[in-house]
C-alpha cells in the first residue's frame, strides 16, 4: 500500500461504480491492481496530478471491502452488482446517474421501479419532470406506476408532459385524472352534486376517493354541545337520498 501522485488519465476508470455519496474530498483516490480505480469515481478525470492510494489487491476484492452491499441504496446496489457481472433486475443504462440518485434518495425498492423498463421512450421528459417536481417517495411510486399504465393505454408523452407542474400534489391529481378518467369524472359529478346541496352553515362536504370506494367526508367545527346538537339536527334534515351515492 502506498500513496502516490499520478496523472488521472493514466488510471483505469473502467469499473466506473458511482456510489451515491461522493468519496470524501480529503481522501486520495483508491486504486487496486493494474491501476484500476475502486474509489473516487466522482473526481475529475482530466487532472495531471492526483493523489492516489495504491493497494496491490484484486480491484473487485477491494470494492467489496469498501462498500457493504447491505448499506447501499437499491439502484446503487444494482450498479455495484453489475460490476461483478451478476444479473440485475432492471435496465439501468438509459437512466442518468442524477436520476438514479434522485430515486435512491427516496429509497424506492426495485419492485416499485420495475415499471421504468417500460418508460425508456419517455426518458428525457420523465427524468426532467420528476426531478423538477421533487416528489415524495409515495408520490414518486404512484407517478411511475401511473405513467407505465398510461404507456400501456397507448397515451402519448404529450398527454402528461404539459400537465401543470407547479406543485406535486396537483400534478399527481392531474395524472390520476388521466389514468382513471371515468371514475374521476363520476367523482367530479358527485362533488358537483354535493356543492349544489344546502349544507348547514359551517359544514363542508367533500367527495373523497379512498381506494376502491368514493365516500362523503363531512367537516365541521363544533364549539360545544349545543352547536353539535344543532349541526346534527340540520344534517338530519338534509335529504341525501340513494341517488346521491349512485352513479350518474
Amino acid at each position, binding site marked *: 500500500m502506498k500513496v502516490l501522485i499520478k496523472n488521472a488519465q493514466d488510471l483505469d476508470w473502467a469499473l466506473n461504480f458511482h456510489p451515491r455519496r461522493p468519496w470524501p474530498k480529503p481522501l486520495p483516490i483508491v486504486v487496486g491492481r493494474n491501476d484500476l480505480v475502486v474509489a473516487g469515481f466522482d473526481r475529475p478525470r482530466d487532472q495531471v496530478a492526483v493523489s492516489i492510494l495504491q493497494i496491490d489487491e484484486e480491484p473487485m476484492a477491494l470494492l467489496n471491502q469498501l462498500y457493504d452491499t447491505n448499506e447501499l441504496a437499491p439502484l446503487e446496489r444494482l450498479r455495484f452488482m453489475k460490476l461483478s457481472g451478476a444479473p440485475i433486475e432492471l435496465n439501468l443504462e438509459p437512466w442518468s446517474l442524477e436520476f438514479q440518485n434522485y430515486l435512491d434518495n427516496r429509497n424506492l425498492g426495485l419492485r416499485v421501479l420495475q415499471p421504468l423498463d417500460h418508460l425508456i421512450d419517455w426518458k428525457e421528459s420523465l427524468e426532467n419532470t420528476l426531478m423538477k417536481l421533487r416528489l415524495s417517495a409515495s408520490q414518486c411510486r404512484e407517478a411511475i406506476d401511473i405513467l407505465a399504465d398510461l404507456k*400501456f393505454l397507448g397515451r402519448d408523452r404529450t398527454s402528461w408532459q404539459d400537465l401543470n407542474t407547479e406543485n406535486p400534489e396537483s400534478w399527481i391529481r392531474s395524472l390520476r385524472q388521466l389514468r382513471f378518467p371515468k371514475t374521476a369524472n*363520476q367523482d367530479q359529478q358527485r362533488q358537483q352534486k354535493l356543492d349544489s346541496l344546502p349544507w348547514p352553515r359551517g359544514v363542508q362536504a367533500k367527495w373523497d*376517493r379512498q381506494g*376502491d370506494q368514493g365516500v362523503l367526508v363531512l367537516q365541521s367545527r363544533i364549539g360545544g354541545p349545543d352547536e353539535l346538537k344543532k349541526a346534527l339536527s340540520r344534517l338530519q334534515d338534509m335529504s341525501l337520498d340513494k341517488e346521491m351515492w349512485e352513479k350518474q
Partner: protein
Amino acid sequence: MTQFEELFVHPKSLNSEITKRVIEHTGLTPMITDRRPYSSLEGRLTGEEFSKSKKRLYLLPHEGHFFRKCPGTTGAACCNYFVLNLGVHCNMNCSYCYLQGYINSPVTQIYTNIDDAFAELTEMIRENPTAEFRVGTGETIDSLSLDHLTLYSIELISFFAKHRHLICEFKTKTDQVDHFIKTPHSGNVIVSWSVNPQKIVSEEEHGTATLDNRLSAARRCADHGFPVAFHIDPMIYFDEWRIHYEDLVDQICSRFKPNEVKWISVGALRYPPTMKHILRQRLTESKRVLTSELFLGTDGKLRYDHDLRNEMFKSVVKRFSDHSSEYPLLLCMETGASWQTTFEQTPRQIQGVKELFDPIVTTRPAL
C-alpha cells in the same frame, strides 16, 4: 392448451401410473431428479420464465399437508371452503390468472401421491366426523385440465362416494368430463365451471374451452347426475359488459334449471398490485386487465370501484331472478357491504347460501 416440452420425474414417482401415462401421452423422455428443476430461477419469475414454466412438467410426491382452508381475502365474507392441492400451475393461459402473482416455481408440478391426500382426508374426517367440509381441487391448478394424465377425478369421485356428508368440487375452464362421467358417484361431487361471456373467453382466457363447450360439458355432467355449479368470476368490465353478461346468464338459464345448479358465485376482477409487473411483461393483445380502472381495496388487492362492482353484480343477480328466484347465487371474496348492496341481505340471511357461511369447527388448529 400448452404442450409440455420437458418432463422431470422424482425418483419416488418413477413407478407411478401417472408417470407412465404422462410418458405415453407426451412422448417425452423423462429426466429423473429429486431436486426441483431450474431451482436457480426460483423466486419471483419473470414473465418469460412464467410462460416457460407452463411447458415444463415435474412429477413428484407432495410432502406436507394437501388439505387447507381457502385463504379467502381480508374483510370478505368467508364461505368455509377447503382446498386440496394436487398440483401447482395451469396449462391454460388466462390474462388475469392470479397464479402469475403467486407461483414462484419454474415448473408445473403434479403430485403423484394422491393416496397420501386421501389418508390425510380420512384422518380429518375421523377427527371431525360431523363437519361438512366442502373441498375444492381447483385452487392452484385447474381440476380437470391435466386430468387426462392423472385420472384423479375418478379416484376422488370414488373416495367421496364413501363420504356422503362431504362435498368435493372440481373447478375447471375445460370441457374434459367424458372420462369420468360414467363413474358411480353419490351426488356429492360438484363439477363447476368458471364462465365468462365468449368475448372475454376469446380475448382473455387463452387455451380454454369455449363458453358453449363448457356449458355443453356441464350439461353432460348434469345428465349423469352430477350437480353442477358456475363461477361468473372474474367479471370483467368493458363497454358492452351488461349485454354480454346478461346473455351469459340467459345461456346458463336456458340449459340448467335452478335445482340442477348447486351454486353460482359471482366475483369481479381483482389482483394484488405486485402482479402488475408480470402482467406488463406477459401482455397479450388485450390490455384490459392491466389498464382497467382499478383501485386498491381494503384487502390490498386492486379492484374496480365499489359502486361499479355492485352495479355489475346486481345486473347479473337481476337477470338470474328474471328467469327464476331459485338460482342459488353468492358473491365470491366480497365485503359485507357488497352483499348488502347486491342482495340487500348478508350471506347468512339468505336461504340456501346461509349454510355455506356457517363456521365449521374443526379440531385441527392448522385449518
